[in-house]
């Protein structure tokens, strides 16, 4: 056996050199790249965590925004609903008001029509009553003496203006005396005398008959017409009743 010390020495130097070379060109770059990758991975993880936190914050923000939008939408809907309800209530109130007004108008028209109908009915009733009274009075009134109407006729003539009286029943313009029945001579004389007293001059008359007067006289001449008969009384009564029922 022989130990080659030169070889031991050379191999030792070789290994030391190899140690240095591998340390410089293999282990150091490998360690460096692994460390760099670890750093990069940590940075990426940090960045990812930051991005995740950012995304979560953005998600929360979006959720809050969504809730705000939903709340404002709800508020808008509520406001629109209230507005619509107010509008609806207003429309309903207007419709009610319109209905009330139309109803009042209809009631007023109805009342007016009813009043008119009642007035018409009253007038018809008054006319009927006058007609009945006239028929009832036809018999008894025929028996009334002419003299009972003369004072009233005189009184009516006295109420006329003097100028009118002077022009009434003159010879130039004779007046017409209408009676319910034909007057006999004596009665005509009584009438002329009574008129002569009332007019202040002799009366010139023409005579006529009209059954519708029932009883009494009607003197007409010039512009004046004097009614002293039951027909005129009945007409006045009927007119007063009609005026009361209007």
């Amino acid at each position, binding site marked *: 056996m022989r130990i080659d010390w*030169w070889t031991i020495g050379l191999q030792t130097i070789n*290994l030391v050199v190899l140690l240095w070379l591998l340390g410089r060109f293999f282990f150091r770059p490998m360690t460096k*790249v692994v460390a760099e990758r670890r750093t990069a991975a940590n940075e990426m993880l940090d960045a990812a965590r930051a991005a995740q936190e950012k995304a979560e914050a953005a998600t929360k923000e979006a959720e809050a925004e969504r809730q705000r939008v939903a709340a404002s939408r709800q508020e808008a809907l509520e406001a629109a609903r209230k507005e619509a309800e107010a509008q609806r209530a207003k429309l309903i109130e207007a419709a009610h008001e319109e209905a009330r007004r139309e109803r009042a108008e209809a009631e007023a028209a109805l009342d007016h029509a009813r009043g008119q109908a009642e007035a018409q009915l009253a007038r018809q009733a008054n006319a009927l009553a006058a007609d009945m009274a006239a028929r009832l009075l036809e018999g008894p009134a025929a028996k009334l003496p002419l003299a009972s109407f003369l004072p009233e006729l005189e009184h009516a003539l006295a109420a006329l203006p003097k100028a009118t009286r002077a022009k009434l029943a003159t010879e130039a313009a004779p007046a017409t005396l209408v009676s319910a029945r034909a007057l006999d001579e004596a009665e005509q004389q009584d009438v002329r005398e009574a008129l002569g007293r009332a007019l202040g001059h002799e009366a010139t008359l023409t005579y006529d008959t009209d059954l519708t007067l029932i009883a009494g006289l009607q003197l007409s001449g010039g512009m004046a017409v004097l009614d002293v008969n039951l027909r005129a009384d009945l007409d006045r009564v009927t007119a007063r009743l009609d005026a009361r029922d209007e």
Partner: protein
Amino acid sequence: MNSPLVIEPLFYVGPVPITQPVVATWVIMAVMVLFSLLLSRHLKPRPGRTQAVMELITGALDHQIEEVVQSDPAPYRVLIGTIFLFVLIANWSGMLPGVEPPTAHLETDAALALLVFAATLYHGVRSNGFVGYLKTFAEPTWIMIPLNLVEQITRTFSLIIRLFGNVMSGVFVIGIMLSLAGLLVPIPLMALDLLTGAVQAYIFAILGCVFIGAAVSEGRDAASQERSPS
């Protein structure tokens, strides 16, 4: 076949004889350094297949060193890593025709063990101080000083002999089989030699690591034991 214990110089550089293991070591060094240069130039944050394998190896080495030394693997990474890779490649270089592994010669193994021995001293002194490291030889009692001193020598020799014996025997067995049985018969033995080579590289590196770790931690343990009674 020549005796494994005798190596003949291939040529001389002045008075220095250059033997086959030295030349083989130079070739292996050249290959390793070229490979390292190529790899380091193409290192990327997103590793390729080769880079991933190399990162896996360095990561596993770091993990092993950390488990043994129980501290940061950085100060021991280059030494243990280089020893492991060199021994592995040197052992496997015997598979190439005409190449005899440098580790099949006692001188290369002695140089490797010498490195481990020097590193043990260096890290022991660095961690504990010169006096502190010397004190570790008197653990647990001063009577143990001769035994501890002898242990330093014998375990270094055991490193040398273990690696030399395993690799040399493998080379010899394959050589004998080749001379006896022709072409295909040695193949299973060569496969076995691959396994043996890897296991021996691992054992050498780990034992070196254990020796360094012991030198570092013995001082630490002794210091803590001295502190605890006070």
